[in-house]
């Protein structure tokens, strides 16, 4: 068969400098590097001008082979430096080539030519500019560019912001997809809500960050009312409140505790449960009931519940009462006016002035010290 591997072997024949990639070579290499885990790579050999010439020769051969395979095979057969094995191989390949219909042969040749033309750009040798400033010490040839025309905009792209916008749109669409196709399936997992019963005295609060890992999602908070705990007498409840300290809210009558010492929610919850049990146990312990210590509520500021006083509402009765008072006041005034008992300050003064005897003062002429006391 005209396998590419055989074809390549034939083409690469002229260049005898290439190493013989036989199995022996592999065995030798394995022996030489028993503990290596990395791939073997040849040491970079310094290329001499002979090497470059031979590489160029290889390229030419390849071109010739693919452009006109029939001729190439013929030339190989007629070449004397070719070994028997290779001649036989070339002959077989020539027979295979002749079996192919001529139209196809032409297509293949045309294809080869097109490919060569297209690849010519790539195969064009890159000349290292000796005088280049930016790439003087650059070992990697691939990184050496001309920079001319690099930043030319061929009207074939959009800005990074626009890409981001499209990405955003894609994200929206992704979530829309999820919402439409997958979320309705959640209804299958819906459980009817069963509110807690009277027996469930402790109320736990957990935190989730919807899949993210967050250090605050391990905290568990428990709330309970001392009154709800079973079998606690009043004195024991009071002791429990004293033990709770500032965790007790006297206005709501609730003890609230939290725990985030441990790494997992379950551990924290367990700790809280144990703590509540310990509290109840200590509250029931009759050894010291803390009777002499008053309940400290200094940590809580009681909000004054100010309500509009009922006495201030202007009801019908109050309105009638006020009207009655005003009527009475008017009557009193009228009565006093008729009696002459209504006192008017201005009238009193005028009356007094009319009847007062003015003090006869002799006007004094002050001599000598005018303008001074």
């Amino acid at each position, binding site marked *: 068969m005209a396998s590419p591997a055989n074809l390549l072997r034939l083409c690469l024949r002229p260049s005898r400098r290439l190493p013989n990639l036989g199995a022996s070579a592999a065995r030798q290499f394995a022996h030489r590097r028993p503990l290596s885990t990395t791939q073997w790579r040849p040491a970079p050999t310094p290329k001499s001008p002979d090497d470059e010439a031979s590489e160029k020769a290889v390229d030419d051969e390849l071109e010739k082979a693919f452009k006109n395979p029939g001729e190439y095979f013929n030339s190989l057969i007629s070449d004397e430096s070719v070994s028997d094995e290779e001649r036989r191989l070339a002959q077989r390949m020539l027979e295979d080539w002749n079996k192919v219909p001529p139209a196809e042969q032409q297509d293949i040749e045309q294809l080869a030519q097109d490919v060569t033309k297209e690849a010519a750009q790539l195969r064009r040798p890159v000349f290292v500019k000796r005088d280049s400033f930016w790439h003087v010490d650059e070992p990697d040839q691939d990184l050496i560019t001309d920079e001319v025309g690099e930043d030319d905009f061929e009207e074939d792209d959009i800005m990074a912001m626009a890409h981001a916008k499209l990405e955003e749109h894609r994200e929206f669409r992704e979530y829309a997809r999820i919402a439409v196709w997958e979320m309705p399936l959640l209804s299958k997992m819906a459980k009817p809500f*069963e*509110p*807690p*019963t*009277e027996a469930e005295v402790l*109320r736990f609060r957990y935190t989730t960050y919807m899949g993210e890992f967050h250090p605050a999602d391990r905290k568990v908070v428990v709330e309970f*009312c001392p*009154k709800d705990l079973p079998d606690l007498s009043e004195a024991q409840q009071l002791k429990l409140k004293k033990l709770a300290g500032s965790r007790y809210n006297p*206005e*709501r*009558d*609730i003890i609230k505790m939290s725990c985030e010492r441990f790494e997992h929610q379950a551990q924290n919850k367990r700790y809280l449960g144990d703590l509540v049990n310990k509290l109840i146990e200590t509250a029931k312990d009759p050894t010291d009931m803390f009777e002499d210590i008053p309940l400290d509520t200094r940590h809580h500021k009681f909000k004054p519940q100010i309500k509009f006083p*009922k006495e201030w*509402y*202007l*009801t*019908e009765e109050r*309105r009638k009462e006020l*009207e009655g008072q*005003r*009527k009475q006041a*008017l009557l009193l005034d009228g009565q006093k006016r008729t009696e002459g008992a209504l006192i008017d300050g201005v009238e009193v*003064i005028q009356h*007094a*002035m009319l009847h*007062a005897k*003015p*003090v006869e*003062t002799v*006007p*004094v*002429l*002050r001599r000598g010290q*005018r*303008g*001074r*006391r």
Partner: protein
Amino acid sequence: MPPRLNFWSACRALSVRTRALAQRPQPGPATLARGLADNTSSRLPPHDRSGALPPSMLPANEQPTSPENEAALNQLRLIEYGLSPLDPAVEGHKYGLPELPLPTDKHTKHRYDAVIQQITRLLMKDGKLAKAQRDMAMILNYLRTSPPPRLDPSKPLLPGAPPAHHLPLDPVLYLGLAIDSVAPLVKIRGFKGMAGGGKSLDVPMPLRARQRRRTAFLWILDVVNRKPSKGSGRTMFPHRVAEEIVAVVEGRSGVWDRRTQVHKLGTANRANLNNEYVKGKL
């Protein structure tokens, strides 16, 4: 948490509660906050029906009354206010018409006498009006309690003034009289350089009432601020001002001389009113 939706809770909601039920002791705040499922009492705080919104607090359209009753009530109200309900001028006015002219001191901005207001503001320092008002009250009280002034005929007060023994009991009049009597009628205004030789030309200009009072009171304050303090406490300054007012009315004050001086100057320079530079600029 809402109560459980089931047959029993629905029945409870629709049933009529008797009085006894309503007066069951309400649960404490903690249980209300938790709202348990088998907690039989309502979520809402205790609603006392007896303290329902009184009918007078209800919006007008809900109040139980008829238009005829309303009219009758209005008439009764008018009678109570001493007005005749059948008087066409009063009809339609619930509290009657005001007595015109409206008393000037019932306007917020004209509560105080004009002289008092002006003088109070002249007493004010650093914007402390309350302190100035208090000082003014103390001045008036001093005038009320000081003996009636002995007038000096060489320093006559404003014509039409009441006799001296009437003044203490009307301290506003006392103060106003003192200030208006000692107020100068003109001020001397200088036209720079118009007198020839670089001197300014003195021209007497008339003063309006407020300007006169202001000048007079600033002279009085000048004298007061130079006086030494005798006592202590917050009546020091107002009593000094009041003493100066009494001195003005009795003719002992130095402010009279200042007034005479200004008038002399004005009289001497009255010809300058006809000056050619001045005529057009007055």
